[in-house]
């Protein structure tokens, strides 16, 4: 593992903080957009909050230059890929439904959910994480 310098740690900590707040904001936006109390909305909001908490729990460690910060950043990144990837697949499924004539229209913009946007924002971390963990065994 590359040495986690304080400078790198602060930069990564700031990134994790932005992502954590981003997911938290996305959860609030989603909650505001769903005035009904149907559990489905609550669960998807809960998922965004879990990803948010994972990033935020790593901030302190990253700023202090500790490796446990990287662990939470990596965990958050994996969750971002899983959740964002799921929303991307769901958008693909909606497009297929449109092609099959089961949906009246397909608007790409409405398919881009906050989870996809946050995944795109998180992706630049991948090369950094790879570099930091390149010499580590599973």
């Amino acid at each position, binding site marked *: 593992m590359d040495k986690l310098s304080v400078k790198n740690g602060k930069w990564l900590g700031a990134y994790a903080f932005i992502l954590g707040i981003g997911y938290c904001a996305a959860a609030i936006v989603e909650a505001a957009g769903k005035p009904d109390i*149907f*559990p*489905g909305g609550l*669960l*998807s909001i*809960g*998922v965004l909050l*879990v*990803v948010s*908490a*994972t990033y935020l*729990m790593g901030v302190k460690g990253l700023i202090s230059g500790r*490796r*446990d910060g*990287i*662990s*939470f950043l*990596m*965990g*958050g990144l*994996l*969750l971002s890929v*899983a*959740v964002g990837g*799921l929303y991307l*697949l*769901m958008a*693909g*499924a909606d497009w*297929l*439904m449109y092609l*099959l004539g*089961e949906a009246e229209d397909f608007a790409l913009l409405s398919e881009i959910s906050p989870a996809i946007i946050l995944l795109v924002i998180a992706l630049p971390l991948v090369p950094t994480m790879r570099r930091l*963990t390149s010499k*580590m*065994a*599973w």
Partner: protein
Amino acid sequence: MSEYAENLRSAFAQRRYERIASIVDSTVIKGRGEIFTLTDMLDQVFLNKHLGIPIFLTVLWTMFQFAFAVSEPFVVIIEKIFEMLGAWSGQAISDPHLASFVSLGIFGGLGSVLVFIPPIFGLFLALSVLEDSGYMARAAFVMDRFMYRLGLHGRSFIPLMIGFGCNVPAIMATRSMDSEKDRMITMLINPLISCSARLPVYVLIAGALFGAAYAGTAIFAVYALGIVLAVATALIFRRTLFRGEPSPFVLELPPYAVPDASSSILHMWSRGRMFLKKAGTIIFGMTIIVWFLSTHPWEETSGGQVIAESYIAWIGHAIEPVFQPFGWDWMAAVALLFGLVAKEVVVGTYGVLLGAEEAGLGEALVSQELFTPLTGFAFMAFVLIYVPCVATIGAIAKETNSWRWPAFALVYQTALAFIVSGVIIAAGRLVGLS
């Protein structure tokens, strides 16, 4: 003799672990929380005291959304194929009896079950990826802490997880548990874990009543209900029928790995083919029986057009009063009755009874106002809980070497199904739902 050998093996294992522990204590110098591998790093997050269970629930939710929402277009493709086959058989076969048999009995009944191949295979693919990545063992570990607090055994979690696929191998998997009491509890609560056979019912009802956006969540809620009930029931059994502390839980956590696509697909196939085999044998046979009962007497039903005059309607009306307080009609009663053989048959029965093509089965449920979201959810809960399928009852009998415990499972689960569904309906009506 075999019991003596078993005790001897356990004693050897116990001594071996004690020896290992003493060697490790005297030779290994533990680091001060130093992280050495990627597995250690990931475990720091996924086994975290505060985040472990929320992350596990997130993974579970993602898995169900993937299985249901992403597979939707593939369901539509299969529906369209069966629509074409049904239309073709209706036109090409001149004999009305045979045409009814082929279009309703075969394409109507069996087809309405086969459309659930995409979500079932999707769920199995997700489970395989989780297993191959090494996360499933962590899920067991994370849940163990929670389960132990409730007086349950951590090793119960693996058979319970297998139960999401099929309860039969899950009940067999309890053989790995050394404590007879822990094993009995795990076997008896296993049918409350929602196996893949029940998924087609959830997909049909949830898809029709909750729409694509919320169907995955409704299904997740039923799965969660199963887990909660299993845990609560186990707790009751622990404090009544099988008193005592659970035995200690030892689990080796494998290192994480990037799942290999081919092995994940192979695992998915080896699980999914069980569903295909069942669809081609038991479910096919049952749909033929349901078709016969719903189209005969042939003259009275005008060649299967007036189901109200059929044998199946007589049976349904006879047992309908039992389910009427839940807002379910005679069709639901018949579907539940035939579902005793295999839970997928519930969907096949509806397919034949409503005479709807697969694409229209959900729409028919809505248009005929057979369920509201509330009564539909209660129906899903009932299907989750009531009488285990014939194969599961057989497995419990075989593993306990007695018919007393399967009979007990049958009675307590049926009673629990009525109670839980009743509570759902009552609570829903209390908050103004119909």
